[in-house]
């Protein structure tokens, strides 16, 4: 500390203030990474349970970790978009439907025009996202209602474009997206392409949120919309961006999903994906009223959901029970987090 400690001078104040700042910073870090210990503990518990019940630690193997990364990737991409939206205090219920619509469009276009299917799918997602955003930003309808409507309407569109049939394409032009891997150490470490995309999306989201003017404005709109308006921030533009981004990323999710399955079905694809995406964001410590949260938290949240799903399957837990356990863990983890945060504030 500096030498401002001469007796009788009011030195303790700045020191206490510096302490305060450190504590605040810690709380910020805790908020984003607070779930990381929970994630690690969860992983270890599942590994131990695997050893106990099945006799071998099949959970923490390079192969299974790679599978899990793949399973988490689509939800991570959707949750990244959802993070933008929830940071402004909104919600996007339509991402599962948009994913299905984008996947259908991508499959159909790719049959005719090959790789053009990828941008076509992404543009489909962007289009629906922008429609959501325009209704919310300019006509000032509540996000919940707008995206609840598009949840249904876009699902209908997804069935419509494929004549309510499943589209197959064993020669899918962009299949590599879903099934190739980047080999780091041959035979030992390889990263699935899907996971790579998800990670890139997270990094780009972080850059936008924390390193651009737009990101600052997103936090500002979520933190205090009327103050943002008065400060001259283009609130409507920000809202349009976040819903557009959410739609675009749902489109990316559609490409990833279709590539993995070599198929798309307007009715079943992406059903209730929005719930997993919202759960990941909330597990990641992002405030539901907006203004507070981070994309890294979202990544950890999405990983937790994947770890749970994968672990429960490995443990042979029945499908029905998986739902119950997953739901309970989400509520429990958030409750734990709240309890810990308020506890930290008190001391």
């Amino acid at each position, binding site marked *: 500390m500096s030498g401002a400690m001469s007796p009788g001078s009011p030195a303790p104040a700045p020191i206490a203030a510096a302490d305060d*700042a450190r504590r605040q910073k810690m709380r910020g870090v805790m908020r984003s990474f607070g779930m990381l210990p929970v994630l690690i503990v969860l992983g270890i518990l599942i590994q131990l349970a695997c050893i106990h019940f099945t006799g071998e630690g099949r959970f923490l193997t390079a192969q299974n970790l790679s599978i899990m990364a793949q399973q988490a990737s689509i939800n991570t991409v959707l949750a990244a978009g959802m993070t933008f939206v929830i940071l402004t205090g909104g919600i996007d219920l339509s991402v599962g439907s948009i994913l299905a619509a984008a996947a259908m469009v991508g499959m159909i276009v790719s049959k005719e025009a090959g790789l053009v299917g990828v941008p076509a799918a992404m543009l489909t997602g962007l289009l629906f996202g922008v429609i959501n955003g325009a209704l919310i930003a300019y006509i000032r309808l509540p996000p919940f209602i707008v995206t609840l409507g598009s949840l249904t309407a876009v699902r209908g569109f997804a069935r419509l474009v494929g004549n309510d049939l499943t589209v197959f394409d064993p020669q899918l032009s962009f299949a590599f997206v879903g099934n190739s891997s980047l080999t780091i150490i041959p035979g030992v470490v390889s990263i699935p392409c899907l996971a790579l995309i998800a990670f890139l999306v997270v990094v780009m989201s972080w850059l936008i949120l924390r390193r651009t*003017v737009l990101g600052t404005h997103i936090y500002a709109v979520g933190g205090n919309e009327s103050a943002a308006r*008065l400060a001259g921030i283009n609130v409507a533009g920000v809202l349009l961006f976040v819903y557009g981004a959410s739609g675009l990323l749902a489109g990316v999710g559609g490409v990833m999903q279709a590539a993995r399955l070599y198929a798309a079905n307007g009715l079943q694809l992406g059903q209730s994906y929005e719930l997993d995406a919202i759960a990941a964001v909330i597990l990641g410590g992002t405030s539901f009223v907006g203004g507070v949260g981070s994309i890294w938290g979202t990544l950890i949240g999405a990983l937790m959901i994947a770890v749970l799903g994968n672990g429960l399957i490995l443990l042979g837990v029945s499908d029905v029970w998986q739902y119950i356990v997953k739901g309970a863990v989400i509520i429990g983890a958030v409750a734990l987090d709240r309890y810990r945060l308020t506890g930290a504030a008190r001391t």
Partner: protein
Amino acid sequence: MAPPADRQPLLEMRYVSKTFGAIRALKDVQLTAYGGQVHVLMGENGAGKSTLMKVLAGANLPDPGGEIRIDGKPAAIVDPSSAKSAGVAIIYQELSLAPNLTVLENIYLGREARRGPMIDRRRMSSGSEILARLGATFGPNTLVADLSIAERQLVEIARAIDAKSRILVMDEPTTALSDRETRRLFQLIARLKAEGLAIIYITHRMAEVYELADCVTVLRDGRYIGSLAGEEIKPETIVQMMVGRDLSSFYKKAHSGFSAGKPMLEVSDLSDGRRVKRGTFRLHEGEVLGLAGLVGAGRTELARLIYAAGPRVAGTVKLGGRDVRHRGPREARESGLAYLTEDRKGHGLFLDMTVSENINLQVCGKDARWGGWLNLRRARQRTLNAIRSLAIRVSGPDAQVGALSGGNQQKVLLSRLLETQPKVLMLDEPTRGVDIGAKSEIYRIIDDLARAGVAILVISSELPEIVGICDRVVVMREGVTVGEVGGRSGTPITEQSIMALATGVELSQDEI
């Protein structure tokens, strides 16, 4: 000190302290109130009046060590309902009625007469009797939404009486009332006094102190300064107790003032069709112009209208001689206007964000590189400069704004505006909820800015502040700028001359 010593005080509060985190809001405060008396509680904003009353109402739990006695017996006030059953009722500035329910339903809210799970309306008639006794001109089944502010106050008072409250706290009840309504309220207070209630009355207005007070207690910076009774109640004494120092050195006016400058902002016949009917004034370079008026006179609305935060239906705004018609705050900001909101937390700051993010919010776009990439180094520099030049007491640029004290929050908000280098700065209640030290620093900043040639409009409900720092004062009444004091008008700037214009009452007619 001449309260009847032989009588038992109805309420005694002693050694009441309250700390919020590191901030001490109250320290060993005392208050003694007798039945049948009006006890006026005074103090600057942030002196701790509201906190003390919240302790009494059970909304804030005091620090251990203090004592509250009612009728000489210790009263355990731990939450609003125990305060209610101890006989305390508070009429807050922002009234706490449900506008969608009727008068009678509001009077019985939370203590409805029941028969099983059903509401028993027949047993809820005492409310109508009380209303009649208080001289209400509206029926018990009127919707509260249809009542005026004064009438709603009456409903609150009726509710307090019906709940057998004996200590009635009124927090600046006349701010939103017309003269005639104020008269009627005072008559009512006299009647309540006669019924033996102890009334604790919070006000800033000296005239009301004379009219009502049997006893005055003054708080300053969360401390008990003293009490006056009867003959001891004199304005000079009270002001000195409230401010704790000579006022003349408190306000700073080193800029040259009215003589200077060409007109920067000319507003004529501006109207939003609702609260602002006709706003006309002229603001010069390097001048501090006050905009005074009673609460509800349309001052804030006028400023927001100039800032294009509301729809304009008539009138013109000239900025530096050029007619402007902004489509929103962004355009207003870009043309050199800045508006400091009166509602710092609601419309001003981003409490979850850092000091640096708040200060740079409006300029980070201008500083950005490659179309939108934040210039963090520049932002940090700006923040450090602002912290130094405005003497903001924070741990650093990354401190969270929500954790700062009111005065420091206000300085953060002010520096955000100053970073845009405004030519015209409109400050709406710039020292509301700010402690005395920060207050005088904000006056210094205003003075410095005026010296640097910024045209400044100050809206304030605190007349001493307006009188102390302004070169000229424009007064609004019911949405219209009705006159001007100071400058070339020939009338000196005094609280009396401003109040005369603000109320439309000639001073000589006023019995006070």
